[in-house]
């Protein structure tokens, strides 16, 4: 089994290095095929490991020592257990699909080879993240995915907006990573280890306040990766990257790392339910907050990005309320349908020559039948309509909130479910239905390559069946590691009212979205309204950050350099130097060569020496005298 573990882990790395060899050369198809093939090997290995885990075993290996000093011992250790194997499956499935898709999508791009190198490196980092058996290893993956995300967002590095977004994403993540790092330090100094099993065993014996801090700091780390408020702005900007990247990194895998962390650290969060409540509340807030921004946005990819943000909020609600397996389940289902949605959007972008405004599209269903069907499936799944995946995972979170008596959270999430359905189908209606507005703008859309569609199909199938088919097996598997909990509403009547009510509510939202946007009528009155503008400008948060963090930082840096470093610190040093120099310059008049002046100085020096000799001698006498009389004064 260990061999499979190593294949699953290192095949993407080999692929990345292989493609990297061709990095600076023009497109070579083999640089795309080999990583894809290796990733498929990784998928197969993961599947074998999954069957192994399903049989009730886990695999745990220690590759080698990483750091060892003092009492600290950090190995490269990897574990395949119920949680990590779930993540491995999600990561490998989605990334295999994305790799194949990218061969088509990046077909005409100059950086084809480079792209695959980065993409496979990302998969490797993600595998390290989910498979590590200690927090330091997790952190390696954590930063590794950050690096790859930076590389991939800024993939088209000649675009100012892309590189800006890349740096923004990296730096925002770094802010959160500091929190994570502090969390790791806290864990080490309190438990003496960073291995999951030892930490979780020791954590119960710690003071509750320490555990609270650990929980908070780890969650700060999670907030950055999962783009939770207030560190959320990078995710929407990250849409500057190529669309397959958005599908893989910014929808399916990397952004869910935060959720994974909370799920993985469940023994810690179990001790501190109050922190869990905060997490859940923040999650619910983000769910609503992000969905509201998705309502009005006019950028196809950003709408989906906000949707991702909103769904991450859902996951955090579940994780925060202690329903870790539900969070992980939604993570999985979401990865499938959201990746599908993004890949569909990628097809649309290709067809429309990278146009992103859905108001310029319309009626594309005729030209792009396959994409239309898949995106609709994904949207239905996202909206949570029975029997697609979203129904089982997302409604489960609603039930969790209800059963745990967090009715406010429940209401927020329910409303958000309506909003989700609305914006998803607003997008579908705008892109695929109504008049063919694209003709006005002179676009000539065409369907994507056949094989791209074929390889999207598995995701579509999973988006449909993942909820129905896997829930039971999945539940049995992960609850061996995660706290079990069937979240059933006690009265059957309430349950049915809730379920059917939610379905009807969501259905109505869909119908409303269709009615309103089928013809893409733009209501000028609404658009000039305050709320529309507020939502359209993302609550003015990016502007706020620009104004109150970025600019002051830049200005302060300038002040530090020009005014403090050069004018104060350095000037002080120069002043001291200049004092000596000037003293020399001024006093060299003494050496004017005139013998009588020099003699006068000599005499002055002599007098000075004599006087000081006398004064010091006297002072010494006086001091000695004082010493004799001082003790007498006190008595």
């Amino acid at each position, binding site marked *: 089994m260990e061999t499979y573990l190593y294949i699953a882990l290192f095949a993407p790395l080999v692929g990345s290095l292989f493609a990297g060899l061709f990095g600076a050369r023009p497109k070579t198809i083999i640089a795309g095929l080999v990583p894809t093939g290796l990733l498929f090997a990784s998928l197969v290995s993961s599947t074998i490991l999954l069957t192994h885990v399903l049989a009730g075993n886990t695999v745990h290996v220690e590759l080698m020592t990483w750091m060892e000093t003092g009492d600290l011992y950090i190995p490269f250790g990897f574990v395949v257990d119920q949680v990590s194997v779930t993540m491995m499956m999600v990561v490998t499935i989605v990334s295999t699909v994305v790799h194949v898709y990218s061969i088509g999508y990046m077909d005409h791009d100059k950086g084809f080879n480079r792209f695959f190198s980065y993409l496979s490196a990302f998969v490797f980092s993600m595998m390290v993240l989910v498979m590590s058996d200690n927090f330091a290893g997790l952190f390696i993956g954590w930063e590794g995915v950050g690096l790859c995300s930076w590389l991939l967002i800024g993939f088209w590095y000649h675009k100012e907006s892309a590189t800006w977004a890349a740096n923004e994403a990296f730096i925002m993540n770094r802010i959160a990573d500091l929190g994570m790092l502090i969390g790791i330090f806290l864990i080490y100094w309190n438990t003496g280890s960073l291995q999951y099993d030892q930490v979780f065993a020791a954590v119960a014996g710690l003071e509750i306040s320490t555990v609270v801090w650990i929980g908070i700091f780890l969650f700060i780390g999670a907030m950055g990766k999962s783009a939770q408020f207030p560190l959320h702005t990078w995710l929407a900007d990250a849409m500057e990257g190529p669309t397959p990247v958005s599908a893989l990194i910014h929808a399916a895998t990397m952004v869910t790392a935060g959720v994974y962390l909370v799920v993985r650290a469940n023994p810690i969060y179990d001790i501190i339910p109050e922190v869990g409540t905060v997490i859940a509340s923040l999650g619910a807030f983000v769910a609503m907050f992000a969905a509201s921004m998705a309502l009005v946005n006019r950028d196809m990819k950003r709408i989906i990005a906000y949707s991702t943000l909103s769904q991450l909020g859902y996951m955090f609600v579940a994780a925060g309320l202690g329903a870790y397996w539900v969070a992980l389940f939604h993570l999985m289902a979401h990865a499938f349908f959201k990746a599908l949605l993004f890949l569909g959007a990628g097809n649309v972008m290709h067809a429309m020559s990278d146009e992103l405004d859905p108001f310029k599209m319309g009626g594309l269903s005729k030209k792009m039948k396959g994409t239309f069907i898949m995106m609709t499936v994904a949207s239905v799944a996202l909206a949570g309509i029975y029997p697609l995946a979203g129904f089982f995972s997302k409604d489960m979170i609603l039930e969790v909130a209800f059963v745990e008596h967090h009715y406010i959270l429940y209401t927020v999430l329910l409303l958000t479910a309506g909003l989700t359905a609305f914006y998803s189908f607003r997008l579908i209606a705008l892109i695929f239905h109504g008049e063919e507005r694209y003709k006005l703008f002179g676009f000539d859309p065409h369907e994507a390559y056949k094989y791209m569609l074929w390889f999207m199909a598995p995701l579509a199938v999973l988006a449909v069946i993942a909820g129905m088919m896997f829930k039971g097996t999945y539940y049995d598997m992960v609850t061996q590691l995660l706290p079990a909990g069937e979240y059933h509403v006690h009265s059957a009547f309430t349950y049915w009212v809730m379920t059917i009510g939610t379905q009807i509510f969501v259905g109505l939202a869909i119908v409303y979205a269709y009615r309103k946007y089928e013809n893409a009528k733009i209501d000028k009155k609404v658009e000039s309204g305050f709320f529309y503008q507020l939502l359209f400008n993302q609550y003015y948060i990016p502007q706020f950050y620009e104004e109150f963090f970025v600019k002051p930082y830049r200005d302060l840096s300038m002040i530090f350099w020009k005014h403090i470093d050069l004018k104060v610190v350095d000037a002080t040093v120069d002043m001291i130097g200049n004092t000596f120099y000037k003293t020399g310059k001024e006093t060299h008049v*003494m*050496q004017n060569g005139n013998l009588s002046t020099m*003699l006068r100085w000599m005499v002055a020096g002599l007098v000075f020496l004599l006087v000081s000799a006398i004064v010091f001698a006297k002072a010494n006498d006086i001091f000695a005298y004082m010493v004799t009389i001082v003790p007498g004064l006190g008595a």
Partner: protein
Amino acid sequence: MEIGLSHYLVLSTILFAIGLIGVMRRKNLLLLFFATEILLNSVNVAFAAISHYHGDLTGQMFAFFVIAIAASEVAVGLGLLIVWYKRTGKIDLDMMTTMRG
């Protein structure tokens, strides 16, 4: 009135002060030499007096040394002075500024 050590020292100090003022005030190089001689001899007086007072001959020996050095100094100095006078025709101190720093 017995003439004691302090009288000699006062004399020495007065001589030294005269010499010092001479060193500071005189512009003529020749007079400067005179002043220097007075300085040295004031010290000689002090040496001799203290030596006698302590009954230790070292001080008086030192005075001899000083006299010898003063003599040689005057010899060298006067030689230089004459050379300088031959070159410039003046022995005014303010004109001698070639050693400007």
